[in-house]
């Protein structure tokens, strides 16, 4: 049985779990109402207690919405940052904090990072398993957007060659990210420094010759220029001997000012792992997979995530309990009518079906509304996070949320049998005399 389950695809497992979770409510719905027509009485109950019902539905919607919003947002952030790091197979830097280096390289968060020298860069670039090795140069900005110096080969890799316009070919040309507010043909003057530390313009213009497609990462706001230009602007050697005027690799170690990190593409997955181990050296270099750093981060944050999930679950349980209590009271208020049904000989299953269907209607309506609320909430949260981090956060319903809602519905629909059965308890005469 377990073997069979594990042999199924992830989607099949998700669908299977969903089916299993919805089975109780379906079985109850069919089992309690098959052959009967409880709808007019359910409508009557819904209408009689419309205000209380509205509040219940809202309560359910808010608690379900919170749960869903939280889960969807958390997953979105995880997927979004993983996608942003997707093009960064392996990053080699000076030893330090992997997290800091990853934030600086992949997410373009400014930080003071030690540099790798020309010898080290050359060793990486000339390694037989390396396909491309891109150096980076930070430090300039334009209207809050980072100006990043690197090689045309890396831009090619980042965009899979899908540049609108053309690649930069001189140090006064730039390719901009999809969200940069400049058109091809526009010019801009980079300022020295980033963020609050901007110190004024460099006094020369760079023209935009190409635009990258959306990558969903902070690189969408970057202005990418040949690294040689950034170095020259800051009075450094430009990576090549004086008579050498070409841009990009290979660089001359003699004239290489240093790079905070090298983004490496190996010839294969095996090559990537080999390079990671070869360039992990105590005092010289550190090599890491941004994807792995992210998963570590999520693992560490897992506890918090769990705490949040538990909080969402607890709030959902509390809401479910208060709703059930309310249903109890309301079905008491409807006791005379339910007593009448029993007095004229309605089968027990029918009376159960009426009360249960009433409860289930509230639960289902609330849950669906909650799903909508949750989606809106995660959309809004996603926008805020995107604006803050420039990581585009994919939103939408995932299986986890679907399972959460199905589990909530099933559990509460089973619990709704309690008020339903209580309507059948006690004497009929006591009910209709009340």
């Amino acid at each position, binding site marked *: 049985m377990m073997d069979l389950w594990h042999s199924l695809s992830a989607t099949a497992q998700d669908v299977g779990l969903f089916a299993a979770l919805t089975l109780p409510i379906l079985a109850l719905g069919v089992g309690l109402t098959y*052959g*009967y*027509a*409880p709808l*007019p*009485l359910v*409508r*009557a109950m819904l*209408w*009689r207690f419309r205000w209380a019902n509205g509040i219940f539905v809202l309560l359910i919607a808010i608690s379900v919405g919170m749960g869903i919003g939280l889960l969807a947002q958390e997953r979105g952030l995880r997927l979004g940052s993983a996608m942003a790091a997707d093009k960064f197979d392996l990053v080699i830097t000076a030893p330090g904090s992997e997290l800091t280096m990853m934030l600086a390289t992949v997410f373009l968060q400014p930080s003071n990072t030690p540099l790798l020298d020309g010898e080290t860069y050359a060793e990486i670039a000339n390694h037989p398993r390396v396909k491309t090795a891109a150096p980076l140069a930070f430090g300039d900005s334009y209207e809050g957007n980072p100006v990043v110096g690197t090689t045309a080969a890396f831009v090619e890799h980042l965009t899979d060659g899908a540049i609108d316009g053309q690649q930069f070919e001189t140090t006064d040309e730039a390719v901009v990210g999809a969200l940069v507010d400049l058109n091809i043909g526009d010019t801009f003057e980079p300022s020295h420094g980033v963020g609050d530390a901007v110190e004024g313009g460099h006094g020369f213009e760079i023209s935009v010759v190409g635009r990258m497609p959306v990558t969903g990462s902070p690189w969408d706001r970057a202005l990418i220029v040949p690294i040689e230009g950034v170095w020259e602007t800051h009075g450094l050697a430009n990576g090549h001997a004086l008579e050498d005027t070409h841009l990009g690799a290979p660089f001359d170690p003699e004239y290489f000012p240093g790079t905070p990190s090298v983004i490496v593409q190996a010839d294969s997955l095996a090559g990537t792992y080999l390079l990671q181990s070869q360039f992990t050296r105590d005092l010289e270099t550190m090599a890491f997979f941004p994807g792995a750093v992210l998963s570590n981060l999520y693992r560490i944050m897992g506890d918090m995530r769990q705490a949040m999930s538990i909080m969402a679950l607890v709030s959902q349980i509390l809401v479910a309990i208060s709703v059930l209590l309310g249903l109890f009271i309301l079905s008491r208020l409807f006791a*005379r*009518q339910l007593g*009448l*049904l*029993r*007095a*004229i*000989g*309605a*089968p*027990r299953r*029918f009376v159960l079906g009426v009360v249960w269907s009433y409860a289930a209607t509230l639960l289902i309506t609330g849950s669906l509304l909650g799903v909508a609320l949750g989606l809106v909430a995660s959309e809004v949260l996603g926008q805020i996070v995107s604006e803050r981090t420039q990581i585009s956060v994919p939103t939408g319903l995932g299986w986890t949320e679907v399972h959460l809602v199905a589990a909530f519905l099933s559990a509460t629909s089973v619990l709704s049998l309690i008020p339903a059965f209580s309507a059948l308890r006690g*004497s*009929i*005469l006591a009910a*209709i005399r009340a």
Partner: protein
Amino acid sequence: MADAIGALFVRDLKVSSNRGRILLSAPKLDIAAGAAVGIKGPSGAGKSTLLFALAGLQQNCTGAIKWGSVDLTAANQTAKAKFRRDHLGIVFQDFLLFDELGPLENGAIQSLFRPKTARAGLRTAASATLKQLGVSRDTGDVTTYSGGERQRISVARALAHDPAILLADEPTANLDRDAADALATDLVSQAKGKGRTLIVVSHDQSVLDQMDRVITVKDGVVA
């Protein structure tokens, strides 16, 4: 006709309260199928208690209550419910209608838990009875109808499934003289026309006058 479902046979019936006090005793009561019987007696004498016992709604009954061959004191809840559903129409003193539903929906309420095949017939019957009883409009919920009209709707509900037995507890208590007499006449004609057994609890002498026979309940004893 001894076994007709509308023939009542009661022997040594004792109804007690939950605390064990005897609320009602009926040593012997026989009613022929198709008879119209009135029940009278002072307030608190046990008239309603008797009527509900005959409907199988009273708990703590000993002795025998037999409708035809169905012994209600021996039956379980499910069997009693089925008996009421199949053979019994009850008119309650305070109507007990569903306020949110209209006259026809109330009159045909049984159709909600009857087999699909029986539903259309039930609605037709309820609609016809409503017309006969003079409730001609079917717009809006029953709260927009007068007390007399609501009482008629509850009579139509009791008759829609063509029961062999019709029990009514003070059906005219909320009505004025003319309306009370008219409803009593309707009850009797609805019963006589179909050979139903009719049992009506009433304080009202002119209603009781329309019955074949009147039973008196006094101090919890059926005479």
